């Protein structure tokens, strides 16, 4: 009677037997691979600890003295130490500037770092290529400028943004006119890295290209690019913000531009924006008026206290509290006179935040 798993099952049983063999083999391979990984990790950590112990001293001496960088006896670099050397050198180079950086570059050239980086650039894997590009940047290697320039266009985000940063390090005057127009297209570039790159280049280099890029972009791209506009020169920024506040009616652009207002020149337009349809534009304009508003704007801010959006009410209340010409008694009187409970509540909160309640 033992027919379960028997009738019509012979083929399947055979397949199951083969599957067991395959599963067993795969499990053993994975097991062996895991053990090998573990052994390699432990050996690698030990070797790296030895390497770091020796080379950190070499780097430290080179940073302090040009003579040491040029003449010190270099420790032997084994084949397995090469990636560690590149990583450690890049790490050391990324935390120093000025003469210490120059000395490290001298030391790197003596140690054959450029050749090691070049070899990694020809690998298929992305990680060695990133390390190579980073090295060229830190070496300020003008000979590799064109190679790095080409990699800025690479599809891989990490490689492409690393190349962009490296290009700025190698030749910022050459890099910025190329990179700034790319920012709106390369939305995959992490914004914090773009910000670092622009800061590295300096406001004097980026102001003009950024102004042009923003003024020629459509509304969507303008909003995106304005996130980086705080890095441009203050005068250029002021002109840019005023242009945008005057010429644009796109809520996204207005919102982004209002966040950058620093001067007083656009106050009438900002006051008018407290009536805008988009709540976040009303909110931003209230916030700005809290910083640069005058007595004539108080009624506009007061009108926002019963806005249907909480954030508008909140920013308006904070703005009123921040106005320099209103004393505590005036503020309390204003709160007590509010007929709208939302307005009274939000003023109460804003007062409590500054210890006025």
């Amino acid at each position, binding site marked *: 009677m033992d027919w379960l798993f028997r009738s019509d099952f012979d083929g399947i049983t055979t397949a199951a037997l083969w599957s067991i063999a395959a599963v067993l083999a795969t499990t053993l391979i994975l097991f062996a691979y895991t053990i090998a990984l573990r052994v390699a990790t432990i050996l690698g950590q030990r070797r790296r600890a030895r390497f770091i112990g020796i080379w950190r001293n070499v780097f430290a001496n080179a940073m302090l003295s040009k003579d040491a960088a040029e003449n010190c006896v270099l420790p032997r670099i084994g084949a397995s130490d090469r990636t560690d050397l590149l990583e450690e050198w890049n790490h050391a180079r990324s935390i120093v500037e000025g003469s210490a950086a120059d000395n490290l570059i001298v030391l790197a050239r003596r140690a054959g770092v450029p050749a090691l980086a070049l070899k990694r650039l020809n690998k298929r894997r992305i990680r060695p290529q990133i390390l190579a590009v980073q090295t060229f940047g830190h070496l300020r290697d003008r000979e590799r400028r064109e190679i790095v320039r080409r990699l800025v266009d690479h599809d891989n985000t*990490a490689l492409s943004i690393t190349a962009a940063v490296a290009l700025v390090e190698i030749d910022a005057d050459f890099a910025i006119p190329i990179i700034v127009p790319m920012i709106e297209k390369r939305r995959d570039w992490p914004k914090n890295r773009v910000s670092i790159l622009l800061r590295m280049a300096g406001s004097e280099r980026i102001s003009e290209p950024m102004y042009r890029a923003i003024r020629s972009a459509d509304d969507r791209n303008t909003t995106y690019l304005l996130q980086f506009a705080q890095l441009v020169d203050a005068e250029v920024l002021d002109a840019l913000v005023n242009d945008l506040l005057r010429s644009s009616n796109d809520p996204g652009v207005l919102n982004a531009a209002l966040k950058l207002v620093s001067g007083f020149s656009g106050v009438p337009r900002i006051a008018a924006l407290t009536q805008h349809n988009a709540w976040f534009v009303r909110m931003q304009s209230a916030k700005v008026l809290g910083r640069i508003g005058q007595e004539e704007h108080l009624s506009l801010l007061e009108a926002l206290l019963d806005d249907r959006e909480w954030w508008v009410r909140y920013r308006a209340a904070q703005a009123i509290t921040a106005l320099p010409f209103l004393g505590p008694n005036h503020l309390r009187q204003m709160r007590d006179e509010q007929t709208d409970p939302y307005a009274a509540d939000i003023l109460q909160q804003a007062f409590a935040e500054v210890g006025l309640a």
Partner: protein
Amino acid sequence: MTLQDIVLSGQWVFLAYFVGINVGYLLQNVVAAFGIRRYLQTAEQYEAESVFSSLDIPISVVVPAFNESASIITSVKAMLQLEYPQYELIVVNDGSTDDTLEKLVEEFRMQAFPEAYRARVPCAEVRGIYKSTRQSNLRVVDKVNGGSKADASNAGINVARYPLVCVVDADSVLQPDALRRVVQPYLENPTTVAVGGTVRISNGCTVRQGFLEKVALPSNYLALVQVVEYLRAFLFGRMGWSPINGLLIISGAFGLFHKETLVEAGGYNPDAVGEDMELVLRLHRLMKAKRQPYRITFVPDPVCWTDAPTSLRDLKSQRVRWQHGLGQALALNKSLITNARGGAVSWVAIPFYLVFELFGPIVEVAGYLFIIICALMGWIAWPQAGIFLGLAIGLGILLSTSAIMLEELSFHMYPRFRQLALLYLIAIVENFGFRQLTAFWRLQGLIRWFRGGKHKWETLTRSANLADETKPAGPVN
């Protein structure tokens, strides 16, 4: 139809289920392995130059707490030391009957604050909001007990001020750089609406000042099995679904959400048993209905450590609740199942969860009973049955081995050979007893869902490694 016909048909059903679930898991494994490899390649590079900039998105961390008096101060102190440039911490005291609120008020010098509260997502009445005079980024919301973590989380969402909201369990131990890691998908892709991270088991680890000091394995067998289970669940369970935007669950212990999308979706459902999964399904539903591109994604980094149940009673309660929650969450969002434009969620992930995760326990338990009955009746051809049994166990071991390999490849949190050996031992042993037991419990959860049960705050017996800061909860090595 004869008895023999019924039994023979049954064996084909079990075989089809067996092949389906294992092929599914193996495919997830392959996708996860590539996903983790790609993730590590870029993450490591970014890490080398990671600096905070003004473009990092501010985060509101919401910590729902109910009777957490023993650990709340340590937890809050640790969460106030997270490495992130701009975040606020909102502790929601959900009508605790112990002195959770009093301890917070005393330790952080909290003062009642007249905040203009707005209820954007539903929750029980808020009694008051307190602001710390010592920590400017700490507030406490005191509310009437709403009976669930979801209700408390919603109160936190209502007072959150920043664009991203991170909901964290009060007894979770966070990695200091957890926020920096989970925010990355938002920086890389602005259409991201939710991100989950890997949750690990903290039993056996040494926790000091609310931070993980030393990673070790627990001595308790049940906790040890859950270590391997969590490796499987997160390293290939979640990582396997994320690349196809088919992630259906973000652990309630740690999740980061785009606040406005969360509010638009209605926040957490206070009536849901598995509120974390129900929310993610609702987010999928909302975004599909809006026909907007979106990402619900997962970072494999271990960002959060949580205490696993160590007694059979607590473990059973947890598994029954999870299964109940799964059934309820899928039922509440059933329109996703029939959404022709639902993409990978509707066409792949939900069918897989329905067949293998939700109704799987029926097939599994029926299979065990089937074998027992057939064995008693003398109907089994033992050599052939042994082959299938061996294959089932072998595949179970293979999946665990693969998860351990992914862990070694990526984060190698268990650095000692003895720990590795123990994990492999568990990968084998868990197939005998533990799996069968959890299948029975999951079936009970399914039955509870059919009957419609009610859910309350879960109170597990904790190993109290947060309260007792220096004493490790019994590491084995």
